[in-house]
């Protein structure tokens, strides 16, 4: 089998992993003339495929042969896909060739489980070792880790990789028993705990190293001690877990294991699907709403309990028609309107349609002048969403606005016109929270009509 065929099979096998981040690595480069590449700072998306996803890393499996039988996975042992296997040298060669042409930021390597967890882990690590030790590669490496592998191997993986990840797959053991029978929630969380501990240790070693090196050799970078982040992925819609269960698990992982990111992946039709799997894929917008809720947890000061309380959800699920912040606000109208000229940052972040950046700008602005309707317009926030919930110098939400029983209907689009913008899973996804990019002429007309009556 030639290189092209292998690449085709093993990239196809890797595409269901949503993670694509290439940011947050320790800053380094090859300015001195030694080594290949650089990393650190914001990630770069070198291309985009027609599914709207970014191409940042060479994302491949070392092999798609697998002992496990996870029913949502294209590579499970029962699947009838064609199998292939790269040698470590082949992956190294591809990574370097693509990297030197500026196609990619680095490598994302995962693998089917062959023979045993340790044997597989050793092969994956060998690729990273060659890249780092033989070729002095300084680009980004993300290694997928198997929780059942020995602690020593997981540590070694972290020594070479900028990011390591273990996929939690489903939020409950019940779900795993049915859909990923070889996987175990407790073992996965134990491994995450081990990784977290090493990351924390590495961070303080780096700090100590930096302090020492500034005293001695100026400009010398302390050697990478350990990966500085871990992430995970949850499959959405395969088992019966509701959004509350998914968000509670995510929150648990963020708090308990310091995960950088939890990725949500609505399972989509795969070739050679399993009879165990539900025949109907979940709507992709569900995944989008989970990402938005995830952002509320991490950047907007929402507590998971607020988002998942029974009175915030419909039968445990997020509202698919409107974003979760708006949905939360509509159900907690007694907390509004909020005076943009007086309220604290925490309260401003609760206003539908105001993103972190807009809040920052409003806080700056109001130190010097009263915030007015015209300012909101110039800040390009979604007036339709914001106005019913706020007071500014020359605007008070009309009674029929905030108290209107039909307020929700103004935001929920008629079903046949749904056009979702979801699945932005990179750093920019935050913007999705307060986006109303498809604000059509019609919508804008409605906005001005609305503001005119105030």
């Amino acid at each position, binding site marked *: 089998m030639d290189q092209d065929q292998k690449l085709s099979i093993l990239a196809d096998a890797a*595409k269901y992993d949503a993670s694509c981040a290439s940011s947050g690595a320790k800053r380094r480069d090859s300015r001195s003339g030694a080594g290949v590449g650089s990393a650190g700072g914001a990630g770069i998306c070198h291309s985009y495929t027609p*599914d*709207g996803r970014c191409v940042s890393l060479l994302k491949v499996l070392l092999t798609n042969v697998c002992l496990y*039988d996870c029913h949502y996975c294209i590579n499970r042992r029962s699947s009838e896909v064609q199998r292939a296997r790269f040698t470590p040298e082949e992956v190294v060669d591809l990574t370097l060739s693509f990297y030197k*042409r*500026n196609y990619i930021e680095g490598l994302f390597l995962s693998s089917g489980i062959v*023979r045993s967890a340790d044997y597989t882990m050793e092969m994956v690590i060998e690729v990273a070792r060659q890249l780092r030790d033989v070729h002095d590669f300084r680009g980004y490496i993300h290694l997928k880790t198997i929780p059942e592998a020995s602690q020593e191997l997981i540590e070694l993986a972290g020594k070479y990789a900028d990011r390591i990840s273990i996929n939690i797959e489903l939020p409950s053991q019940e779900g795993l028993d049915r859909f990923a029978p070889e996987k175990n929630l407790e073992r996965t969380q134990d491994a995450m705990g081990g990784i977290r501990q090493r990351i924390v240790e590495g961070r303080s070693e780096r700090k100590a190293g930096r302090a020492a090196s500034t005293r001695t050799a100026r400009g010398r970078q302390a050697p990478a001690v350990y990966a500085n982040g871990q992430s995970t992925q949850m499959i959405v819609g395969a088992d019966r877990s509701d959004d509350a269960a998914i968000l509670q698990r995510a929150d648990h992982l963020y708090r308990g294991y310091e995960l950088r990111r939890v990725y949500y992946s609505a399972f989509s039709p795969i070739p050679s699907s399993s009879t*165990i799997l539900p025949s109907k894929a979940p709507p992709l917008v569900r995944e989008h709403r989970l990402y938005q809720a995830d952002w509320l947890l991490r950047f907007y000061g929402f507590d998971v309990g607020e988002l998942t309380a029974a009175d915030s959800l419909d039968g445990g699920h997020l509202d698919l028609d409107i974003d979760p912040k708006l949905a939360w606000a509509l159900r907690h109208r007694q907390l509004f309107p909020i005076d943009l000229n007086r309220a604290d940052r925490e309260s401003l972040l609760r206003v539908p349609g105001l993103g972190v950046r807009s809040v920052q700008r409003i806080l700056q602005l109001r130190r010097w002048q009263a915030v007015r309707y015209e300012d909101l317009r110039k800040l390009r926030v979604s007036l339709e969403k914001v106005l019913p919930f706020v007071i500014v110098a020359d605007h008070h939400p009309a009674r029929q606005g905030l108290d209107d029983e039909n307020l929700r209907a103004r935001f929920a689009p008629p079903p046949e016109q749904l056009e979702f913008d979801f699945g932005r899973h990179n750093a920019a996804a935050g913007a999705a929270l307060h986006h109303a990019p498809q604000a059509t002429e019609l919508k804008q007309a409605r906005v001005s009509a609305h503001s005119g009556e105030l």
Partner: protein
Amino acid sequence: MERAVGNSDFRIHDFATWRTRARFLLHTGVAPAEAIWEDSESSEQDLFANLAVTQTEQPDAAADTQQWLISAEFLRLAETVSCHRDPMRWSLLYRVLWRLTRGGEKHLLKLSTDNDIRRLQGMAKQISRDLHKMHAFVRFQKTGDCAETGREQFVAWFEPDHFIVRFAAPFFRKRFTSMDWSILTPDECMHWRGSKLSFTDGVPREQAPSGGELDDLWRTYYRSIFNPSRLKLQAMQSEMPKKYWKNLPEAELIEELTAEANNRRDAMITRQAVEPKPRPKNAYLESLGEGAGAGVEDERSL
């Protein structure tokens, strides 16, 4: 000093010349409405323009000796915006500089809804996006190995929206230090040969090589990493607008991948699902415990 005004070239071509001139005008008290700024790129220059300038920009007899403190924040913003292609940027920058200093609006940069600031911030954002896209979408092609040094040699073609070539240089220099490379653009070209960056005039597209030897393999990757079940063209285009497509080898696949996506997805859905295979004999799988994999048959009835 008067002679300096009368004889100087008013065409501004970079941040340094703008800064020198802006400093002079500010100190001599020439108000923004009186100052004339001409971009070196704009061709509408005539002799009378210069004449007019010398008359309106006579320095105030009581040339002021006050030192104006300019924040690093404004200088950074001004340097960024100086890369913009809009010929009005020089006068806009001067007006904001004036308002920050003589105008007494020290906090002006904090007012995101001020029209001048909005414009400046908008321009800065366009520059930063252009820069980011250049870092992302430059595609090197290997042209050979240097006979003397043995270093690999690469060339790329890129068409930035703004004058950002020098701004983009540090990224490429730090990342691809061990290769020789040239990035060619219509405005300006830059070259790295291992120790020093050099710049030459812009060139037309034809002077750049087309068709890299690894393009096919890259297209294979692009084709395979795409998931036809999740077609979302609009999201792709907002991040990778069509104007970039002609210089991206993978972009020629977009039409075809899009056209066949729904059929591929439907074929996956209608295809007969596969029954689970029994667990193979494997010591490792057995070590995972009795429970693992045992429950499947029982739960089928759920």
